[in-house]
């Protein structure tokens, strides 16, 4: 592994499988009476979150604590766009206190890369703007592999707000690297120009995207990132792109439904789908801890290859 985990784009196939296999072993720790191993004793991890987050921050913190690291949370929740200077200053101040790992969530694409160049600490990207969210894609792949025993050759339909989604980019990079057939679907205003260059099939028809799919991955409508009207109304969006049981029925009978959270029920996904028998949404959350433990372990000790 390299010094930092900034994106799936930096990982080889073998490194992806190394993370997934290590996560298998880490998951068992969460089932013990004492859910803690001494591996990162004496290591300090700073969770620096410039955007609101429940799942990812909690998941990282639990993962760090299960590995016995000392953890520190800095939540810089703010609505203004932070200038490069501010992030650099904050980073240099944190760096001066010599943490071993910095986990960064930031609204600007490339923020983790900036930190990586400036800091000796190892940097884990916990989501940067509309760019990447590598640990989410890794936990999604872990969840898919657990259910399907493979990733190669699966049809994966990703439906929703493709334009603003870092989860989309990381997942597409990972799933195509491992040989899945990825379809993306959303209203044409929310499909990034040239998305096919990433090696996916794009469509505006949900029925076409989910037909015979092994995996349906829903993406949240990110109203906080939308400056302008991308679709006429929430109700119209749900009618055209929302995942309903009728649409799920077009997929394979053993389809799994995923969502990175937080869900907008009745916008991109119907409640009976989210809570239904095909949903693995809460398993994704559980697997997130094991995958983040694996990433922390693989980065925090050892040397660069």
């Amino acid at each position, binding site marked *: *592994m390299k010094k930092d985990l900034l994106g799936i784009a930096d990982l080889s196939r073998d490194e992806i499988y*190394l993370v997934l*296999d*290590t996560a*298998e*072993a*880490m998951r*068992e*720790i969460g089932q*013990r*009476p*004492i859910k*803690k*191993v*001494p*591996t*990162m*004793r*004496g*290591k300090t991890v700073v969770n620096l979150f410039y955007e609101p987050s429940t799942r990812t921050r909690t998941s990282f913190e639990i993962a760090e604590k299960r*590995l016995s690291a000392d953890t520190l949370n800095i939540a810089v929740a703010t609505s203004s766009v932070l200038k490069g200077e501010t992030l650099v200053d904050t980073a240099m101040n944190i760096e001066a206190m010599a943490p071993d790992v910095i986990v960064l969530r930031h609204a600007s694409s490339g923020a983790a890369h900036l930190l990586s160049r400036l800091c000796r600490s190892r940097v884990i990207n916990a989501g940067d703007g509309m760019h990447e969210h590598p640990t989410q894609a890794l936990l999604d792949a872990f969840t898919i592999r657990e259910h399907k025993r493979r990733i190669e050759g699966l049809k994966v339909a990703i439906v929703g707000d493709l334009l603003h989604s870092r989860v989309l980019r990381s997942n597409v990079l990972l799933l195509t690297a491992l040989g899945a057939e990825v379809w993306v679907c959303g209203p044409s205003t929310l499909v990034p120009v040239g998305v096919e260059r990433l090696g996916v099939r794009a469509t505006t028809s949900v029925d076409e995207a989910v037909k015979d799919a092994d995996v349906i991955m829903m993406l949240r409508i990110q109203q906080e990132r939308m400056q302008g009207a991308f679709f006429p109304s929430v109700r119209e969006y749900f009618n055209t792109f929302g995942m309903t049981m009728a649409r799920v029925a077009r997929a394979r009978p053993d389809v799994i439904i995923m969502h990175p959270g937080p869900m907008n029920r009745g916008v991109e996904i119907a409640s009976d789908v989210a809570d239904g028998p095909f949903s693995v949404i809460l398993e994704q959350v559980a697997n997130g801890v094991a995958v983040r433990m694996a990433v922390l*372990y*693989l980065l*925090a*000790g*050892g*040397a660069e*290859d």
Partner: protein
Amino acid sequence: MDAGRMSKSLARIAHEILERSASPADLEALALVGIRTRGVPIARRIAAAIHGINGHDIPTGALDITLYRDDLMRHAVGPQPLIRRTEIPFSIDDKRILLVDDVLYTGRTIRAALDALIDFGRPKAIQLIVLVDRGHRELPIKADYVGKNLPTSLSQSVQVRLTEIDGRDEVEIQES
């Protein structure tokens, strides 16, 4: 040590375990835990040997001690060691755990294994079985059952090979 000697050593250890567990209650409390990688097949062979003697099935688990190693975060000389699953499909509370490894050397692996085991519960006792004791302890650790004492120098390395993993049974001393 060749395949014949290895299987005799393990059979002898199986008999010794049964001699020291005279009562049915003692026997019932036994459990084997192999340390990954090569302790696991050795533990299974001992369990099979005991089954062959008196028909009793001893629960057997596998322990990966990587996350408990004392040198894990010290030397940044290469990529992190691979972690494998720990599988102990029984409660270790009040059990007499027979910890199994292939080679006993510095004792640091066993130290890590003791820490790992105790995170799973409170066994009544933990005893140590090794196929080969090569000496040079760095910690106050001693095996309860030893297949063979093999005096070695620090410049040598001891390689245990097992059919399940390496395709054949043998113990080899190599000059390094």
